[in-house]
């Protein structure tokens, strides 16, 4: 039996208005493909490139509570800031983030990552040094790979020591697109320039 979109929408809006939702999520469009955005009562909890993200939602539920409901309204603010970012009109995000459930190393690295400015890049090794573990470039790479709030926590701005893009959880095409959008210099640095 099908539920009319009006009835469905009315329930979702009522649930949100009554404060019964731990995490609201929706899939939003962007120039680099659809994004699954999840917002908890504490703030933006996840952005995922994988929109059939059953596992992603389970993970968020484990952190923020089981009352996870799709609700376009709950991601309005994030949608607006992302739209501005992709339109080139926003360089800094003004969003509260939900970073609960992270190991302290991850948390520290992501805080440092948040300081990498728009349009610039840094390296895994440099980021590792900045958190006081100069040999932990690989561990920093893992943190980038598992970053649950990409774009807003700009792991796309972290590249290899020689300037190679190295990798990106959303695929290198997306990393390139984000860096191009920001006007960052991409490509291997020549040793003797």
């Amino acid at each position, binding site marked *: 039996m099908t539920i009319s979109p009006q*009835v469905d929408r009315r*329930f979702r809006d009522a649930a949100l208005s009554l404060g019964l939702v731990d995490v609201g999520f929706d899939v939003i469009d962007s120039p680099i493909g659809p994004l699954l955005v999840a917002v908890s009562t504490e703030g933006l909890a996840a952005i995922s490139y994988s929109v059939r993200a059953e596992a992603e939602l389970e993970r968020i539920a484990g952190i923020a509570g*089981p009352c996870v409901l799709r609700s376009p309204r709950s991601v309005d603010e994030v949608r607006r800031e992302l739209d501005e970012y992709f339109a080139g009109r926003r360089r800094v995000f003004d969003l509260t983030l939900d970073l609960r459930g992270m190991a302290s190393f991850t948390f520290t690295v992501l805080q440092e990552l948040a300081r990498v400015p728009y349009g610039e890049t840094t390296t895994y090794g440099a980021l590792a040094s900045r958190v006081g573990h100069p040999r932990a470039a690989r561990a920093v790479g893992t943190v980038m790979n598992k970053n649950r709030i990409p774009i807003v926590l700009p792991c796309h701005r972290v590249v290899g020591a020689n300037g190679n893009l190295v990798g990106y959880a959303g695929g290198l095409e997306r990393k390139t697109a984000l860096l191009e959008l920001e006007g960052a210099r991409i490509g291997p640095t020549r040793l003797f320039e």
Partner: protein
Amino acid sequence: MMHAVPIPPFERFYEEHRSDVMQLLRRRLGRERADDAFQETFLRALQAYRRLEHGEHLRAWALTIAQHVAIDALRRSRVHAESADPGAEDGRAAYLELAPLTDGLPPKERAAVVLRYGYDLSYEQIAAALGSSAEAARQATSTGVRKLRKRRIVQ
């Protein structure tokens, strides 16, 4: 050691059971009134969802909440719940599966007994279904059981 079935994110619970819930509500209340009852059912479920201890019997749980929302709606509109009770017609409704045993109990006690002993739900879960406190659910269950015992002795 047995592991409890994890509680799925509410969205999945909703997607899996909304169709059955709507079907039950339309049968009991008609198309128009079913829409309001549908919202009420899932708001009650959402309200209780955080207190669930495991993810078992969620379909039975959802349908029982729906059944109760329907009974409340029928009562409010002064239509006797009995006259709209589809009885054996609705063989799929969890609430009615143990109907023959609990027939004759007031609706709340009947539901409490069925949920407790038919589906092994906790009093917290039953409370959510009935829209009452856990203590009230426990009382409804024990009163229901007492009445059934008594009836058996009498019969």
